[in-house]
């Protein structure tokens, strides 16, 4: 009877504390949970995987520190996929703020590959395997201009090199030489890619979005406007899973490592609801 009273009235601070522990422990002692890959991510992976040799993958890094936990793992997984399969990568940001985070992801994955590379053919080399186009003013202008010529719009890259001098850009003229645009953004940006790049130039678009905005983007997948869709931490974890299983690329899987935190937090909240209801019902019966 006493226990029932306690269960029906747990102090909120105890709830907070247990939640904190449940979220924090899996982060300190990471273990990647294996996940079943769902069709939207599988489609995405296959679309990237099937990019022919002469075409490139555009990755649009448009996440900020706020949405980094969900979207950065997607960027890392995509880069690992592309570098492993020697798919040419064009990285860019449509806003200024995400530039630093894009740079961070590129450096991380490049180092992962280069630390084990023995020959120059094995390594990932800037200008040959990937190019960081950086940022130029006007998101929509960028989407439209790249339909005609990428090097004309991004005439210098992030590091100040003239893009037309870079080896990779010699064969990449416009969207006709692009396999898919992967837009990683918490906002409306993936929709703009469809409206401006796809509708006018026919380039394929895949999107990585946060879990809150998922329902807005589902219809685009159903109509085929998106060639793939990653949603939140779970979507990122699924892509990580595919990269590891299909291509055997090892490396930290931050999204997969965060999933236990999310799973335990959900289960904890559910458990608290059940406990609260048990307390509530027993007390009501006593009355």
């Amino acid at each position, binding site marked *: 009877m006493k226990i029932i009273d306690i269960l029906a009235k747990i102090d909120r601070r105890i709830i907070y504390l247990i939640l904190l522990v449940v979220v924090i422990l899996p982060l300190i002692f990471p273990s990647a949970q294996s996940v079943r890959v769902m069709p939207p991510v599988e489609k995405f992976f296959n679309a990237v995987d099937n990019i022919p040799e002469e075409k490139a993958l555009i990755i649009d890094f448009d996440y900020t520190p706020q949405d980094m936990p969900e979207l950065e793992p997607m960027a890392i997984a995509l880069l690992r996929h592309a570098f492993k399969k020697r798919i040419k990568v064009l990285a860019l940001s449509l806003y200024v703020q995400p530039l630093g985070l894009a740079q961070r992801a590129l450096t991380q994955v490049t180092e992962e590959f280069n630390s084990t590379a023995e020959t120059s053919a094995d390594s990932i080399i800037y200008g040959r395997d990937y190019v960081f186009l950086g940022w130029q003013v006007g998101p929509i202008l960028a989407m439209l201009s790249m*339909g*005609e010529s990428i090097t004309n719009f991004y005439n210098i890259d992030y590091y100040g090199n003239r893009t037309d001098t870079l080896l990779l850009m010699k064969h990449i003229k*416009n969207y*006709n030489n692009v396999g898919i645009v992967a837009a990683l953004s918490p906002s409306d940006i993936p929709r703009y890619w469809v409206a401006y790049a796809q509708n*006018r*130039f026919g380039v394929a678009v895949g999107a990585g979005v946060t879990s809150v905005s998922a329902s807005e983007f589902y219809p685009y997948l159903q109509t085929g406007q998106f060639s793939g869709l990653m949603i939140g931490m779970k979507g990122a974890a699924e892509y990580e899973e595919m990269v590891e299983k299909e291509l055997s690329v090892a490396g930290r899987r931050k999204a997969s490592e965060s999933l236990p935190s999310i799973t335990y937090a959900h289960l904890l909240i559910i458990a608290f609801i059940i406990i609260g209801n048990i307390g509530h019902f027993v007390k009501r019966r006593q009355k």
Partner: protein
Amino acid sequence: MAVILLIGLIGVAPPTHVRAYDTPDDGGGSIMVEWHLSQDDAILDGYEIYRSNDGDVYEKVGFIGRNRTRYEDSNTEDGENYFYKVVALKDTLKMYSQASQPVMSSPQWFDLPKLNILIACVIFGGLILYFVYHARKGKELYIRKIAGLQAIDDAVGRATEMGKPILYTTGTGLIGDIATIASLNILGEIAKKCARYDTQLINPHLDPIVYTVAREVVKESYTQVGRPDAFDPDSVYFITDLQFAYAAAVSGIMVREKPATNFLIGWFMAESLILAETGASTGAIQIAGTDRVPQLPFFITACDYTLIGEELYAASAYISKEPLLLGAIKGEDLGKLIIGAALIAGSIIGLLTKLPILNLFK
């Protein structure tokens, strides 16, 4: 001759049937160009669009991918004649189409596809206004009970008994958010009750303009009940226009001043649950209301009473008990009947006929 032969060998056909016309329903400065695909569309790089003032010298104005038959040239001078040619592009090879007929762009005074919206505004607005003026004649109107409203009196009374203040926030909306204005109306009535019972009111703000209006509203309420002297100008104040800084400060007020009642009424974003949970932890009675559907689940779970969606607007009319304002509710109800009827009628037409009924609601 040699050039023609070369093209014949490679076989790139130009696009045909190039047609240009003034872009309809726009502000001018734009011409639409349409064409039929080149027979060799599949191997093209895309289409270049060329424009000329005299039909002689052409300059390139745009480029669009293959398998596209439309281009909007949004950089034209109104009232000038233009000719267009579309070019099938393959590497350095260009095949020009025939020129279009001359065309002029011009601005329009009315956006025809939006006519349905205008009609809807007139129908629903007219209904509401009809009932507003009808109500002037003093006809008694029945309005069903709204739970959150009944609680307001008790809530103010409780604060008075406990000798604690009342916190009222209009949320993070700006003056252009209609929910903010509805909230200001309710604030006015609650300020009157506070003035009568001599209960302290705390009213912090996110938007400087809303703050300015709120101050006038509250001051007026104190004057109306004959207590202008009791109005404390510092009870209504501005904090910051940054959403989460505002949430942090209001949470601070909740735990420090320990209001007996928190009113969270207006336009809210993610801060809804921050405020509602902090308020709940201090044991205050909480009455919330918003038309922001994504935030409603959080108010419903964390607050004692919640005005859902339209109830917020009905409440602002109901609480003042002015027949003029109440009349609007009757008009809104009739509007709901019309929407329901339109849905049913539209469905019947849509199911039984092949009429493009959805186009009415574009």
